[in-house]
């Protein structure tokens, strides 16, 4: 069922299908794809969780830097 609906919507399938992991030859796919595909795809869930964590962490670091800058600004204003 999934493959039929894929054929209807995905015009890229024909052009790239032989390069896809789902296509025959997945065994020769890169180490990354093989690792992610192992153990019933559970590492994809890990990857998704890590993406959210890293993006939020990145934002946290940015806000931290901004706060530090503001602190500096306020402190130097008070000294004047």
């Amino acid at each position, binding site marked *: 069922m*999934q493959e039929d*609906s*894929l054929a*209807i*919507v*995905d*015009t*890229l399938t024909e052009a*790239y299908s032989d390069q*896809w*992991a*789902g*296509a025959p030859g997945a065994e020769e796919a890169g180490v990354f794809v093989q690792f*992610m*595909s192992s*153990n*019933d*795809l*559970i590492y*994809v*869930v890990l*990857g*998704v*969780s890590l*993406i*959210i964590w890293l*993006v*939020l962490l990145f*934002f946290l670091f940015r*806000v931290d830097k*901004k*706060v530090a800058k*503001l602190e500096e*600004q*306020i402190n130097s*204003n008070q000294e004047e």
Partner: protein
Amino acid sequence: MKVWKYVIAVWMTIVIAAGFLIYIPEIPILEQTARNIFFHVPMWMTMFVLFLISLWYSIKYLNDANLQDDVKASSAATVGVVFGICGLLTGSLWARFTWGSWWTFAEPKMNLAALALMIYVAYFVLRSAFDDRAKRAKLSAVYNIFAVTTVPFLLYIVPRQLTSLHPGADGNPAFSEITADELRFILYPAFIGFIAMGYWIYEIYTRYNILKLKAENS
């Protein structure tokens, strides 16, 4: 720190752990990635709630011209975009291992979600174009009202009318009878948890931006 923040911290810890631990039925192709629903879908819900907060303060700014409301609106939009980026990246990874491609231009929901984020990128570009604070606040508030109204169309209404690999196409609600019921026990708490997390991050960012506004005015 207020009590609700501790509650969220504990709540989210349980949701994340339970998301990995609960038993889910065997689903072909998706297999264990069905668990991604607990993380990927709440990103979009959180984004939308933050955009609604942003809309609220934009309208409020147009009524009372209080610059603090403008700060709140832009902070909510920023955090909303952060969650939107999480949603896009997680969706892209999920697509790679279930649909077979990082990105496909034949998939309406994927592309329209990216478009919705672009509309918000334009909001920040518009903001940076003005040096005068009152003018910037007023114009970006008007633009923001336009921007938020496009989101339900781009993410829900239009994709549902089209053929798509993404659940929720062809007129179906995304969570229909074909989806396993067990997933709801974690999905709904995850919605609450992530939305509350988003609100928490928004609150911190707003407090910073209001302090900055005060420092610049003094």
